[in-house]
Every structure is written in C-alpha cells, then in structure tokens.
C-alpha cells in the first residue's frame, strides 16, 4: 500500500500549484478543513473583568471635579454607559462577601 505525504492546505492557499515536494514525492493536495463560521461576541466590563465598580469610582471623581449635581451625574451615566444599580457599583468580591454575611 502506498502512503502519500499529505499537506494540509487551508482555504485561500494556492492549492494545486505543486504536485511534488522538494524531494520529488507526490503531494496530495486540497485537503481543506475548517469550521463553518460562528462567533461569540463578548462584552468586557462586568463580563470578563471585575471593573464596573472602578468605572463608577472614576465617574464619581469626575463629577466631583466638575461640581455637578448627582442628578446630572445619573443623567450623564445613563447617556454614556447605561445606568447601573448601586449594587453593581461594588466589586464582585465585595458583593459575594456581603451576601455571605447575609446583608
């Protein structure tokens, strides 16, 4: 039985160009293996990173700096980032700890 050396060629490569490799061996070509296209699209803050409370702190300091009222603070956050409940402005660890203490 003859075993042919196999070269895996992905879509877009120049499949079929070379019938022989450097040593003169015949190459089996066009072996295309791929997945049909599917995609996972991830949000980041609060999804991949524990960072929501840090954004909240940055917003708080920003508005303190500019001297605007809390209503404006809320309005603006709603405008730019979507308003989050106060609970969401604690770090994940803090929330877990609070829950553990039955708070």
């Amino acid at each position, binding site marked *: 039985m003859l075993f*042919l050396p196999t070269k895996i060629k992905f879509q877009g490569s120049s499949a*079929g160009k070379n*019938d022989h490799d450097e040593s003169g061996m*015949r190459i*089996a*070509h*066009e*072996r*295309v*293996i*791929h*997945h*049909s*296209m*599917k*995609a*996972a*699209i*991830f*949000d*980041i*803050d*609060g*999804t*991949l*990173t*524990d*960072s*929501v409370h*840090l*954004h909240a*702190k*940055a*917003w708080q*300091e*920003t*508005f303190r*700096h*500019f001297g*605007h*009222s809390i*209503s*404006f603070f*809320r*309005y*603006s956050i*709603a*405008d*730019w*980032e*979507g308003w*989050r*409940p106060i*609970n*969401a*402005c*604690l770090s*994940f660890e803090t*929330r877990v700890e609070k829950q553990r203490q039955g708070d």
Partner: protein
Amino acid sequence: MPVFLSKQELKNKGKEIEKFRGELFKRKFLPKVRPFARVRELFQRLTQDGWKIALASSAKKDELEAYKQICSISDLLDTEASSDDAEESKPHPDIFQAAMSRLGQVSPKECIVVGDSPYDAEAATKAGIRSIGFLSGGFPEADLIQAGFEVLYWGTSDLYLQYEESIFHREAPPLIANVNLKAT
C-alpha cells in the same frame, strides 16, 4: 428625569468630562482591573470548538487594548469593536453590528452575545443576535431575564465549568472536511 444642561451644552461639556474621566480611569483605576476567573480557559475551549471570538465594548480603543492584556486573551481573539467603531452606545445595536462586519461573512443567527447588562441583551436583540447573560456585573436576575437573555450564568468561571452543557458546545460550528486527493 431632571436635565440641567441643554443637549448642546451637555454635548460640549460631555466631551471635556469624558476626556477627564478617560484619563483618570487609565491613570488611577485601570491598574486595579482584574479578570474574572478562567477567562482564558473559556476562550480556549470556545476556540477548540471552532468559535470565532470578538470583543464588543463601549470602552475606548486604548482601554480595550489594556483589557486584552489583563485577561491574557489577545492571541485568542478574531476581532474587536470599541466605542471608536460605533456611533451610539448600547442598547443601540451599533457596536455588535460593527463586530459582525469586522468578522466578515457572519450572519446574526450564527452569533451569540455574552454580556452582563440589560443593555447588552437589548442591543443584541435589536441586531437579531441571541444572548446569554452573566450575573457577575451586579444586575438583578429578573432585569436580565426581562431584557432578553435566554440563559444566565454567574460568570466566566460558571460558564466554563458548565461548558459541555452550554449552547456553545451544543451548537458548536460543524466541522467541514473537504478532502480531495488529486490523482495523477
């Protein structure tokens, strides 16, 4: 909702405020950002199953770069869309549409959004994409379900541990093998 500045004033002032906030965040808070557990492991598992992975965040482009480093996922990503790529923020579907167009030939039906806020679910629905939600962002369960997430997890680690039963494994992209050995 009380508004103390006109839309135009808010827009002008908003730019200044956003600049200040962005710099403050980068300088003082970005170094404190931590990834949730098993983000990289989850992404590796998705990649094994043939999923393309995109990030879609209303963070700015440079913040997004930092997040990729923090989560150690740069090499596992296919594309990303930041606020620089979208005109409107969530719940507007802009950001997810930007991510899809960067992925190339992908239809909304072949995508799944993962997020932690009702705005993620609403934006996904508007773009025709299904979504799954995480409780790790602190939003109440009821709000997330009502917003349209079809299933909820505690977060990355929970999804990773239940991966085999998840939609990602059950509906993983089918493998297409095209073997055409040319005979001479």
